[in-house]
């Protein structure tokens, strides 16, 4: 399925024209996107490094991951909204950018992993889970989101 007409339509839409014509709007949205990325990163680092037994070892992992998940969800919503705004201004460029597709693929994997695998698993009593299972979840989660952040950064360079 060719998605190019969809991307072209988005860039030519009133939203795309607004974002493209108002440089300051794009820059401000970029900054909010970056702040939300920091909050998402902080919630992931706190929760996943606790699962890996690297940080906050004297705090029950359930307490850390529950709080982290709340802020992960808030940051993710802000990231998706601001990301869509940013995309609308440069949709055709993104369509032809391989790093954009790497980021989108990694993001979908990250979201599915967070809500379909990680959360249901961590909703259980952590004491009943094997330590290596928790570690593997933490490593997988951090790795996927690191790819999302790094490939997102590279979109602007290529």
């Amino acid at each position, binding site marked *: 399925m060719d998605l190019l007409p969809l991307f072209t339509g988005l860039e030519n839409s009133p939203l795309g024209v607004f974002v493209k014509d108002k440089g300051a709007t794009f*820059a401000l949205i970029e*900054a909010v996107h970056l*702040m939300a990325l920091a909050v998402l*990163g*902080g*919630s992931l680092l*706190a929760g996943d490094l606790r699962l890996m037994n690297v940080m906050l070892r004297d*705090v029950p992992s359930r307490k*850390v991951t529950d709080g982290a998940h709340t802020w992960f969800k808030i940051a993710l919503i802000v990231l998706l909204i601001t990301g869509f705004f940013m995309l609308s201004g440069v949709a055709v460029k993104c369509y032809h950018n391989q790093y954009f597709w790497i980021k989108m693929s990694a993001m979908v994997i990250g979201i599915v992993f967070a809500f379909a695998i990680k959360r249901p698993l961590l909703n259980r009593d952590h004491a009943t889970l094997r330590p290596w299972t928790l570690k593997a979840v933490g490593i997988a989660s951090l790795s996927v989101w690191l790819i999302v952040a790094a490939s997102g950064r590279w979109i602007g360079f290529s």
Partner: protein
Amino acid sequence: MNSLFLRFAAWLEAQPWSSDLHSSFYMYNWIESAHVLTLVVSLGLLAVVDLRMLGVCWNDIPASRIAKRLSKPMLLGFTLMFLTGILLYAAIPVRTTQSIWFRFKVILLLAAAINAWLFHRHMNASIGAWDTAPKPPRRTRFAAGLSLGLWASIVICGRFIAYDWFDCGQPGNSVFVNWFAACPVDSGS
């Protein structure tokens, strides 16, 4: 003071490694990416601490424990972010020195550092009374909110440095912009 900064920036820009850094596609972009990723680590963990101090998250974990356990990785992130920031400055020193956004950013960074120092001192002196309280005292919440506000402004200014809206020589720059950016008198207004 301004002429001293500008002379230093001009000297830096005259160094071969400064222009090499700027013109090297991969080196510059790797440094910029590292700057953003270390920002995610440092500001992300700072947000965790500040949200706890605001009393909006991790309320069942003692505040001092969160602050102490996250301080080392947070400081490591800040150090790397600072170092990569210096390299980014060194790659484009003159334009950056004359950027009003860079100047705002430095002022805000100093304000954030002073707030962090005062916050740390206040926390160490009083934490025993509210360590396990879900909602810390008003002064603590104010300092945490200020910290988040200052860093949000720092991120915005940092992002805006890349844009040339108020660069010296831009037609329509106000007297304030030319003064604040210390633009040369003949750079247009």
